[in-house]
């Protein structure tokens, strides 16, 4: 057996160990439970997760993309400063972030009091859910998007501008097409991060429950048979986007 084959076998073994937890889907937990008591809140959690995570991702995209473009083209010193702030936002443990969000946007916080005056409450409702999803995921998206934009030579954008293209058309015709796969990867990481968020959401928006919170509720209330259907749906909705994005990114010809 050649050294290359030995290495390959080791990697196969590693992959098997890595994917082994997925075999839990076939574990003998008894018949999967899908009666009314389980199905209604489970379906509701799927709807909540997909709808409000989708809304959060729209905000992440619309706010995060211009920020990333700005930071990517900033001077090195300034860029480092912004990146350190973004990294700080993703380093916070989710539960700690949830508690901090509750304090900052609750009645005790400056923004919370101001929002309260305006009649907006950010606790246990859809806006609180969306806000939390945005906070937990936007740092991942922006950092990934900065890397994607920085992979493009600034001279390409300047050449495009010198060819008479205003800034928005330079973005649309040069920056975006060249960065799109990197942006897709960043977006998919943010999507998975938001969709799977439990620690922060359980503090700020226990209701309406998204899939991770409902998984916990099902486990606590009904045991494993009630968890398995939701677990399957969770994997099917969370996995394909980042998986395809990463595969496409590996194939990109002009990185």
């Amino acid at each position, binding site marked *: 057996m050649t050294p290359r084959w030995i290495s390959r076998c080791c990697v196969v073994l590693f992959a098997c160990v890595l994917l082994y937890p997925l075999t839990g889907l076939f574990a003998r937990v008894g018949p999967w439970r899908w009666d009314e008591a389980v199905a209604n809140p489970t379906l509701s959690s799927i709807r909540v997760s997909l709808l409000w995570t989708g809304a959060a991702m729209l905000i992440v995209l619309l706010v995060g993309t211009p920020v990333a473009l700005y930071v990517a083209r900033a001077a090195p010193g300034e860029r480092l400063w912004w990146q350190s702030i973004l990294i700080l936002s993703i380093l916070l443990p989710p539960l700690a972030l949830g508690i901090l969000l509750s304090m900052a946007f609750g009645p005790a916080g400056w923004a919370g009091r101001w929002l309260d005056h305006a009649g907006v409450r950010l606790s246990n409702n859809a806006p609180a859910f969306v806000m939390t999803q945005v906070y937990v995921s936007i740092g991942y998206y922006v950092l990934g998007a900065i890397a994607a934009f920085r992979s493009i030579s600034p001279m390409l954008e300047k050449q*495009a501008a*010198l*060819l008479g*293209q*205003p800034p928005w058309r330079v973005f649309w*015709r040069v920056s975006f097409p*060249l960065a799109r796969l990197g942006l897709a990867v960043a977006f998919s990481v943010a999507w998975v991060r938001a969709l799977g968020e439990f620690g922060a959401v359980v503090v700020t928006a226990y209701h309406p429950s998204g899939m991770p919170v409902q998984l916990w509720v099902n486990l606590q209330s009904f045991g494993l048979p009630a968890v398995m259907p939701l677990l399957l749906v969770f994997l099917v909705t969370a996995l394909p986007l980042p998986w395809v994005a990463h595969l496409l990114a590996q194939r990109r010809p*002009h990185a």
Partner: protein
Amino acid sequence: MLDAHILKRRRDLTVDIRLTIENGHSLGLFGASGAGKSTILSCIAGIEQPDEGSIRFGEIQLFPPPLPLHLRPVGYLTQEPHLFPHLTVAGNIAFGLERQPTEKDNGWLADLRTSLQLNDVWGAPAARISGGQARRVALARMLARRPPLVLLDEPFAGLDRQLVREMIEGLLAWKNALGFTMIVVDHQAHVLERLSPHVAVIERGQLIQQGDWEQVRAAPATDSLRKLLAPL
């Protein structure tokens, strides 16, 4: 007329220079590597901003305040072709034209395509063509918009003599046809001489001599210029 006073401070060099070029004329910027020639072009193009000074081309004030790049009537060609790798050769060349090119645009593109021998690669992805072809595509892309001010920063470096000869002949023909004003930077005197009868010599960021090539060759202002002009 291009009227420029550029003051640009760098860590190791301060470029401080005044240039005036009549419309439709050309000027070669000659000097050793690192003399500040490229900085001058870069400031006129708008890639960099001067620290002080003013740049005016006809009625258009380029600096100060810095005019946005997309409003500058400038074609800028550098050593690196900087083609858009996600587009075809045709997409690159037509990039600066309106979405619906006019009949006149199409005729001009066909002329560029033939003259620069791009027929074989016209539909090819720009990322998959050779270095020499990429330079020709970059030249065609710059000329496609018919800019009134053309800035060339060592556009022929590293190309074989035959290709350089063809590109120079093409440039001179298009300059006569389109009447653009042209500034060319190169450290090879024989290349510059072909492109422009007038030369401005730059040394350590300063203009040390200006005139026709004959005048400069007959009485170089400094020893280092004499050495630069000496045959190998």
